[in-house]
């Protein structure tokens, strides 16, 4: 038991040191980096390590006669979790979610502290001491809280109601934009009606230049959430035919029209990108075109920000309706290029 706990303690100390070191820049922040794709489990795993570590630590301290009181254990744990969520997870978690996590953590600590009668007594003893004002120190603290708490509440209420002054950082209202709203059943481009569920990109062609879905299906190498397509030959090869030729033509159109906003790498960080809020869609993100059908992209490209349906409100998109500038064939080719370049395979109607 003791050996187990010692190991726990060592782990706890090391983990805490590494965490603190990484956050304050003593050791490189990537010492223990979050592994792409495994982060959710990693986060839970790390938290488990910390819990195990703290248990060991508190056991060791206890056996050395340096007990941390239940009260401070609880407070410390809540503080740790808040700190962990705020500093460890990158990109930063939105406040709303942190608030939820924080509340649940507090409830959890309460459940832990009050799980048996003794612990609960120990936990509230310091609070009761202050309330009873037994010693001069406690009395002082009590007086301090009596003044500080209402003052703090007043300040909080004032802060949340007073309009932020000029020059101050005015909070923009929260908006819930549906980024990929449900598309219409069909869309009419250049006088031709495309039924989104059945239309196909006519440029998924085999080397002979004939439409061939099978050919592009064969290129899929990864069937899971983000389907990936096989690397294949260079479309800029002047001899490239069929599918690759169409990709090249799509690429030319992309770099003449789209890359100013969507960027050279299709990552939504083009020349003009940061003039917009939100910035243009990042096609390399597995949450964008990789999740959508090819016809959805076709619809969005041809109709632009103006063509968004009601769920897309507020229509925070300045994408022009490209049907006014490109032919349907050109739009299909651009779509083809976008998928080729990012390596994703469009979602199919399954």
């Amino acid at each position: 038991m003791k050996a187990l706990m010692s190991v726990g303690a060592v782990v706890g100390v090391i983990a805490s040191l590494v965490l603190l070191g990484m956050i304050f820049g003593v050791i490189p922040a990537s010492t223990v980096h979050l592994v792409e794709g495994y982060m959710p489990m990693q986060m839970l795993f790390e938290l488990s390590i910390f819990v195990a570590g703290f248990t060991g630590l508190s056991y060791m301290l206890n056996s050395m006669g340096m007990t941390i009181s239940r009260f401070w254990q609880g407070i410390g744990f809540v503080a740790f979790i808040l700190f962990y969520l705020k500093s460890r997870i990158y990109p930063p978690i939105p406040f709303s979610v942190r608030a939820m996590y924080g509340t649940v953590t507090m409830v959890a600590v309460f459940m832990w502290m009050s799980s048996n009668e003794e612990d609960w007594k120990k936990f509230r003893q310091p609070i009761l001491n202050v309330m009873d004002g037994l010693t001069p120190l406690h009395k002082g603290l009590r007086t301090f809280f009596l003044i500080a708490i209402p003052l703090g509440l007043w300040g909080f209420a004032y802060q949340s109601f007073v309009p932020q002054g000029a020059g101050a950082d005015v909070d923009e209202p929260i908006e819930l934009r549906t980024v990929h709203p449900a598309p219409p059943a069909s869309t009419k481009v250049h006088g031709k009606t495309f039924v989104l569920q059945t239309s196909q990109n006519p440029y998924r062609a085999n080397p002979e230049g004939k439409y061939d879905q099978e050919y592009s299906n064969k290129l899929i190498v990864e069937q899971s959430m983000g389907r990936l397509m096989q690397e294949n030959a260079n479309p800029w090869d002047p001899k490239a035919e069929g599918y690759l030729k169409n990709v090249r033509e799509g690429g030319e159109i992309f770099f003449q029209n789209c890359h100013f906003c969507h960027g050279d790498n299709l990552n939504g960080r083009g020349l003009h990108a940061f003039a917009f809020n939100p910035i243009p869609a990042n096609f390399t993100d597995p949450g964008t075109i990789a999740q959508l059908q090819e016809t959805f992209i076709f619809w969005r490209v041809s109709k632009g920000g103006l063509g968004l349906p009601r769920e897309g409100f507020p229509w925070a998109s300045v994408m022009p309706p490209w049907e006014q500038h490109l032919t349907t064939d050109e739009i299909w080719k651009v779509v083809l290029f976008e998928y080729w370049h990012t390596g994703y395979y469009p979602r199919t109607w399954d």
Partner: protein
Amino acid sequence: MGRQNGKKIWSIMALCAMIGFLLLPVATSLNALASGGGEAPPAPAVKAEGEKKDEAKVEKGRDVYYKTEGIVSGAPAPKTVDGPRDYPRYNFESRVLLWFANQQHLYYGSFVLAVPIFCMIIEFMGVVTKDKAMAKKYDQLAYDFIKISLTAYSLTAILGGILIFTFLTLYPAFFGYLSSIFRPVMHIYALMFVAESGTLYIYYYGWDKMKEGFLKWIHLSMSVILNVIGTLLMMLANSWIGFMMSPAGVDEQGRFLGNIWHVIHTALWNPLNVHRILGNMAFGGGVVAAYAAYRFLSAKTDEERAHYDWMGYIAMALAVAFLIPLPFAGYWLMREVYAYRQQMGITLMGGLLAWLFIIQATMIGILFLSTNYYLWQALGRMRGAEKYQRYIKYLVFVLVCGFLIFITPHTMVMTPAELKAMGGQQHPVLGNYGVMSAKNGGINVIITTTVLSFIWYMRGNKEPMVPWKNFGNIFMGAFFGFAYVNIIWLAVYGYYIPANVRVGLSVPQVATTLSCLFFMTALNGFMLKGAKQMGPIEWGKISVRSQYAIIMLATAFTWMMGLMGYIRSSVRLFWHVNEIMRDNSPWAYTHTVGFAANMISFNVLFFWISILFVFWLGTLGAKKVPVNVKAHVPGRVPEPAHGH
């Protein structure tokens, strides 16, 4: 001896009277059907066919759901216009008034329907228990239960009357249409209500007179009859909301086609029935537990405390027992909704009402957290449970990790600045918690942990003595350990396989949880045969906090019931009767989540204030008069259909 026989005869007569009460509505309904439906068959299952000769004369219509043909025998659904004729109103939103009246009636109604079922179970337990003292205790408990429900019963009737008047005054056109279709059903309903009242009072006042032997069995069978009537009553009421959600038995213009069974037996009727029965039971258990908690907190003596601690425990256990199958019934209802109209399902789960399901997820988490907390606190009243109490913190950790994943929303609320900092709507870490795969894992971890807590509770004061106890413990540990591994593995695995395979993973996950529930409780039972008692359960020694956990649970149940009812009702959007009768009042839009939450809170608080008041009245009465006498005969009030 003669006196005894007389009692016997008298009791059998009472029982017959009750059966008569039960059959009376059916008998009258035959008449009602005959006069109401024209050619409606008395046996409901028979389809309305035939009458080929009259074909030329009568107009035929096609059932919107069953697709059968029937003779049009009712007026089409009225096309309402906004105005004092169809929508008379006070200077307030009529819909909110109706919402309030409906919800209060439903709360009381489900409480009064649930409590007799508990009484039946507990009375039966009392009868079959060999231990005389225990049997008496159970019997007393059942009697206490029915006493609570009696006052609530008259309130239910009054609230039902208020509901009807609200309907009549605020939505006359709609109510007129509904009652024209359900005319015979409404009569039966009213008569059944009378039958229910009669049975309940005989059951209650016969308690002391029918205590022993044969008479006790008669009394017990009375409770069965009482529950049959109650359940039928609820099913009839469900047929109205079922009709409003998924109409059947009428043609596309809403004209009644002569087959009342089709009107009752709509697509969602049975799933609703099952869901509501289970929900009522869980809710009723919660309310009784809250009553016990109240009595516990206000108790003056140790005996009182011990009794109400025990009562709270039983009620709580019953509530949780019905809580566990509830999600599966909900799943069935949801699947039927999808099968009936996919659009409806999407509005619920992915569209307008999706945020309400976020709240629901939180509520489910709260329910399980408080259940666990109660069980842990309950360890405190046992000798020898200390060995488990030390490990509770790890259970808390596991439980909370599951809960956090379960409530992580798919679409996070954030300011544009945060959106920018995150670089997209999806968070690379938390975004993965937002999908179904992770959430299934989360909830299954929570339920498995609850099972584990329960098993700890069962063994709290016992030490297994079977020869294979060491193996048993290790096996149990391994089983739980690998159950967790399996659940988490399946949750993670879901990310690596295509969507069509992923959806199937929830089934083995649930099966894992259920395996834990059934096998491990059974194994635990075997291991505890002839176990060494470390000490008795010291009823009444439980902490005050646990009672607040019960109250929390009861409040959460009530709130959740209001929430789910609101969801179920608002999914019709702007239809009074889905796709048959449009709502053309100014309130045909769907409220915001916040407004709904306020309204639900208001309803919940109103219900609890009133029922706490009823409880308080109960204690007052008990102090002054030993036997509780409250006899206002209700039942005349909810007779809705007479005016029509």
